[in-house]
């Protein structure tokens, strides 16, 4: 049976009828067409579906849609400024060669964003600890860590 929910998505209020069995990922991708958030495994083991809920990085594939009621959700589509300027992390990923096939990238950036939003100057170890739940097969992670560190260093 469908239920109505209200929550904030990328700074805008969303009211929607949802099926209880939907995950947040399903709702974002299949209902809203926000396909920037990826599904890499569906089991919370790869991090490709990472979005931020109330300031915390979570796997949207394991997040029941009804639990976002009243919460604030940020996806990769929501971190660009209104005039289209990329987020520092997005710029840094581009500049540092942190992107190859790109499938892990949105989730990786969202994990990094949750970290730097919470912590002014995370260490390299904290960066690694934070993105350990985001698997990447292409880059060997080095340039991803460099890209995040560079944003932190410029603060």
């Amino acid at each position, binding site marked *: 049976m469908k239920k109505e929910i209200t929550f904030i998505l990328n700074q805008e209020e969303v009211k929607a009828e949802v099926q209880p069995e939907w995950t947040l990922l399903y709702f974002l991708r299949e209902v809203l067409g926000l396909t920037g958030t*990826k599904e890499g495994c569906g089991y919370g083991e790869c991090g490709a579906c990472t979005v931020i809920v109330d300031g915390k990085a979570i796997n949207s594939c394991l997040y029941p849609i009804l639990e976002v009621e009243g919460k604030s959700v940020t996806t990769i589509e929501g971190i660009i400024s209104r005039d289209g300027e990329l987020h520092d992390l997005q710029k840094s990923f581009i500049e540092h060669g942190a992107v190859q096939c790109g499938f892990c990238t949105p989730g990786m950036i969202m994990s990094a964003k949750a970290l730097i939003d919470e912590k002014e100057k995370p260490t390299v170890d904290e960066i690694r600890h934070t993105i350990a739940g985001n698997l990447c097969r292409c880059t060997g992670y080095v340039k991803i860590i460099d890209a995040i560190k560079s944003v932190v260093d410029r603060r």
Partner: protein
Amino acid sequence: MDNFPVVGQRIPKRDAPQKVTGSAIYIQDLKIPGMLYGKILYSKYPHARILAIDTSRAEQLPGVKAVITGYNIPPFKFGFFKDNPPLKSGKVLSMRDEVAAVAATSPEIAEEALEMIQVEYEELPGIFDPIQAMQEGAPILHEGLKSNVLKLPWRLICGDVDTAKKESHCIVEDTFSTQWVTHCCLGTSGCVASFDINNNLTMYSNTQIPYLAQRDYIDALNVFGIKNRKVRVIQCIIGGGFGSKLDTYAYEYIAILLALKTRKPVKVLFTREEEFIATSPRQSTITKISHGCTKEGKLLFREMEMILDNGAYTSWGATTPSVMMMPISSLYKVPNVKYIAKCVYTNNTYSQAMRGYGNPQATFAIESSLDQLAEKMGMDSYELRLINANEPGEITPQNFKVTSCGMKECIEEVAKRIDWKGKRGKDKGRGVGMASLIHVGGGARVYKSDGCGTIIKIDDYGKVDVFTGASEIGQGSETVIAQIVAEVLGVNVEDVNVINNDTDVCPWDVGVHASRTTFVAGNSALGAAKKIKEQILEIASKSIGEAPEHLDIQKGLIFSTKDKEKNTPLGKVLRNAHYSTGGKMLMAEYFYDPANENFDKDFKGNLSVSYAYGTHGVEVEVDRDTGRVTILKYIAAHDVGRAINPMMLEGQIYGGGLMGIGYALSENMNFREGRLMNPNFLDYKMLTAKDVPPVEPVIVETNDKDGPFGAKGIGEPGLVPTAPAIANAIYDAVGIRIKDLPITPEKILKALKEKEKRGQSGEEGK
């Protein structure tokens, strides 16, 4: 070497902006109006007879539009040996055998329908060990065959190994084995098959071989009774390749069959579990190797015998011995070589291409064995490697013509940076090791063609469109091609647009494999850019009043090299070309097919125009109590000819390196009686950001005479020597040699304990 404004620069990857914003469209994201979702039912047993399939309940489920089985599709087999039907009838030969498929209005309904399909099996005894499968009286998997050994006699003989053995001062012999590992593309496999009203097929695909896949699909359509139709392959942004998409798979034919039956576009998208189970991994191997050398340490012979588990069907995995021949014959100077390989059918999964294409397996055996030889000789293995290192100008026993070769530099760089002399054999529990590689660096003529086409056109404002056959799988080919074109044409790299994903639009290419794209597609783009530049300068010469050979372009300005004051903007020349009587359209095409050779019947020939070399050095620490290995330092030196884009090149080295470390230490597809026990990221131990050791890439530039701006390939080499370098370092650290990948803590601890026991009982232990 010359410095260039664009080539050699750290230009950001061209498609990165769409990827960091989530706007890149992968196959996962693609929806076409009216599209149905296909799902596949796999076998319940690794070997069984199908007695009956009842699809009636599934067909009645609302939302289900078609159900197909091996019994109601046209007879068709695909694959390198044409031994694999997209849906099986009669017998299933592996757990990944496709038995039925459903198209429905949603993936959920399609999945539910699969559960309603009743299949009755009679289980048959399986064969899961290639050695057993070769034995007399073993059940034959494929009906009509006399043996499980494939009719693929891989056999390379160079010189005279038997005589060399007699002449050798020192000989070592041992057996090494490697496991199945899989690509783990973050984006799972998938496609959408869509027919137009005239039965022309459009395949939205992840393929690495758009033009070969096109041919495979046309062959299939002909069998399906759709003759003489057009097939268009459009690639979405691809979420990782690594070789996994070098062949066509059953799911693609199933999508085509379902689309034909329903007259709707049909999408098949793998779940992660399917990706593990139903795509084809790197093959497992068992290798017997021996090496012999002179008193001075000069290699005299190398002999290898190999058994490859082919699995139940045949894809490119069965042809990897052809690439293994490369390191076997030509890694270090070794005059006498013998190599025999057998591929054997079993009820396991069947293998395919994966980054390195057999080279990592062969190099693991070769480089481990070389360390053994050095030890037996009482030599420093670094010296042994230097003595035998490949050199420019050499013609190897397999008739490879070595042009540029920075192998010695790589070995020396590694030794210096890892502090070889200071650390080798010194510290208990810590050790250093190294291993080198050879790989094709100037294309590889594995098909009849090794070509790639490029078309370039320029608009009225100096913006360049490059249509290339080369596919982009994340490695950065679009950026390298844009850099090369921008460099030649003297325009900003931002003004070069690369179109690379549509067989209707782009020229032909043989595929993204064999580390060939920078070299082959790069040379193709270079040729086309030079051609169009000639045209532009020809036109400009009239308006500037200078002979074309004295004109050049920089930053969008055409100028006389004799008098820089004589110039005109590129855009103006281009517009004039269009807006004049008898005008001219500026467009050029170029097809580059390197002057390399197919192997002859004896598997000899200059496979590649140039060869890539590299050496990895690693320092490890072994925890003697737990068997766990920690990598303290990792040096990866690669002869790349020239780095067109050092940033992306490092990306290939880091990425390949970590994939190689996983291959060496943690990754393993754990099959038990044909059943994959770890089809998920939790239990398949692909490494995480916390597992990354300190890696130092070292780029050795040798400026290859045939490479575009001197470049050679680097896509695969990053993981080729990783496992033996680590194995050699572990031996240096604790005196045990693990000959069976992956080198798990269990294997190390067991070996340490056995060594201890032998030590106590007074036996000589190693």
